[in-house]
């Protein structure tokens, strides 16, 4: 029994660790989409955050600088995206895809001299006394800074969207940019901030990979997690706390299939590898079905460019 619990605890810690990049990137994208901007460049922004964070720690030595650098690089990518879609009013889908392709190439180039090097990882922060609670203490109260930060961000944006004035304005811009504009809200400026916040979160999410999971740099090391983050936003039907559930389910299935293989469950490994993605598609299908009946949760102006001279 004791041994089983120790294994369980180790596996839960692994699930949490593998979910955090998804959680952060999806949270950022949620805010972006709430403002009416669909940014498909999440994968690219995560990659930029990862390479920026790795380089910063390599030069400055302290893993906390990596968080700042990751956030900065993600936000920088998002602001490049914003210039195109807000100022030049380009198609958001095409520009977002372009951003990911661009960032993949750029990070490959910028990361070339970083290959083969390693950095110190983010330290775990123990919360006094609470971390000594058997089993759950280790899981809930002995995480690194980014893990706590991601939960804090979720709590903050839940409050922000629901109760704060700027949050309500943000939703208004996403739901009907013409009305928001005619009431006098600066639609472009608000979308710019929201997109940059999304980039910042994606950057930190990407940064988590070299800072906490695998302290090296490898090209395309985010491995498609940006796309999963996009799916999670729909899965959560734009409600922040549901992202936590979605990310943990995805992480849980990912780890469960590895455990299944290690214990020799008689299911083909190819099928097990597909499981997290199948589950995502399955969840999306169900949710989309519901959304078509109740459209109110989808930001109505999502993906539509805003022309302020109309």
């Amino acid at each position, binding site marked *: 029994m004791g041994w089983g619990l120790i294994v369980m605890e180790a596996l839960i810690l692994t699930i949490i660790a593998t979910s955090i990049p998804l959680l952060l990137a999806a949270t950022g994208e949620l805010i972006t989409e709430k403002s009416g901007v669909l940014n498909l460049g999440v994968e690219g922004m995560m990659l930029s955050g990862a390479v920026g964070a790795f380089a910063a720690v390599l030069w400055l030595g302290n893993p906390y600088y990596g968080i700042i650098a990751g956030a900065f690089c993600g936000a920088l990518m998002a602001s490049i995206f914003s210039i195109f879609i807000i100022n030049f009013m380009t198609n958001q889908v095409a520009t977002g895809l372009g951003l990911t392709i661009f960032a993949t190439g750029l990070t490959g180039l910028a990361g070339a001299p970083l290959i083969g090097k390693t950095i110190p990882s983010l330290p775990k922060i123990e919360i006094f006394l609470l971390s000594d609670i058997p089993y759950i203490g280790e899981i809930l109260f002995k995480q690194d800074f980014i893990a706590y930060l991601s939960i804090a961000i979720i709590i903050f944006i839940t409050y922000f969207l629901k109760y704060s004035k700027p949050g309500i304005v943000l939703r208004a811009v996403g739901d009907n940019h013409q009305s928001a504009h005619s009431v006098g809200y600066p639609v472009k400026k608000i979308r710019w901030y929201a997109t940059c916040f999304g980039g910042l979160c994606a950057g930190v999410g990407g940064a988590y990979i070299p800072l906490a*999971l695998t302290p090296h740099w490898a090209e395309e090391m985010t491995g498609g997690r940006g796309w999963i983050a996009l799916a999670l936003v729909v899965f959560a039907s734009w409600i922040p706390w549901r992202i936590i559930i979605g990310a943990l389910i995805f992480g849980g299935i990912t780890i469960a299939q590895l455990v299944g293989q290690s214990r020799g469950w008689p299911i083909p490994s190819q099928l097990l590898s597909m499981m997290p993605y199948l589950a995502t598609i399955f969840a999306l299908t169900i949710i989309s079905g519901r959304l078509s009946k109740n459209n109110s949760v989808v930001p109505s102006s999502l993906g539509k460019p805003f022309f302020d001279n109309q």
Partner: protein
Amino acid sequence: MIKFCMRFFSLMALSSSVLFFLITNTFAGNPTKVGFVYLHTKEDFGWTMAHEMGRQMVEKHFGKDVKVTEVNNVPEGPDSTRVIRELAKQGNEIIFTTSFGYMEPTHKVAKEFPNVKFEHITGYKRSKNVATGNIRFYEGRYIQGVVAGLMTKTNKIGYIASFPISEVVMGINAFALGLRSVNKDASISVIWVNTWKDSVKEADAAKVHIAEGSDVLTQHTDTPAMLQIAEKSGVLGFGQATDMVAFAPNAQLFSSINNWGPYYIKKIEQLRSGKWNTGDGPKHWAGNEWGGLKSGMLTISKFQNMPNDVAQKAQKVHDEIKSGKFKIFAGPLIDNKGKEIIPAGKSLDDGALWGMNYYLMGVNGNVPG
């Protein structure tokens, strides 16, 4: 008018490209033109970097006598057909395509360019102008198994595998044979990650292995993620393709290092002297070049993080394989269901190795697919 313009420009383009071709061929002297197609970038610190080091050996060896063109980051599939064809069009006389997934594209282009020689790495199909080359990776795996068997305390070994192709299965089985030669109680559990390169997934698989009680890990994937997790968790592991000691100074037991240079040089020399061949023959399964420790295509980094007697034993096994005194896949071989594959006194030939779709004794589970 538009039609005329289009005709005019296409004529211009055509004539200028012909002119360019003539000029480059007349004034470039006469170096042998060699092309390389890489799967990742040369900085991947694994598979492609090992090929890049081989390519650098070629340049150093031949100097001005060869002109090398390499193309990075070529995805397996239709895209690679385009790249290989382009290299053939540019007048490369020999083209090395350095990943298993380039097999069909290589053959497709080879039919279109019968005078160009192709060398497909790790494939099994050959034709008149397509040869194959490979490394006997499994020799390193056997030594890993021996070291793992002597170092494990939990008697559980965690293996992270990429795709269920015979090359990988062969490696698992060689590891199992090495393991069981020194430790009959130890067993291997395999996690297939279905990717060559995904740091996070490899790290997750390593963490799961450790949580499940493995204390020695090995990988048949390309990133150093597994070793970094091993280092963090205080367990041991082996590096892949290049020496990964920098990532895990306290965890790496040794790395098997791929050394493609001698093979590249040999094949280019064959081409230059007009003796290039595909080395086909009966029972000569993997073409003309399937080299291991003996030919120097596989080397082993320093044995470390192990007691002296383990290192000595590993060195002894290494020397015996290298000298050809010891055959790894020698009978009696029994699969993990208890069925005898071959009896004592016989050993598997190369063809049988490439048909491996079963686990030998000591490996848990079934080969997927």
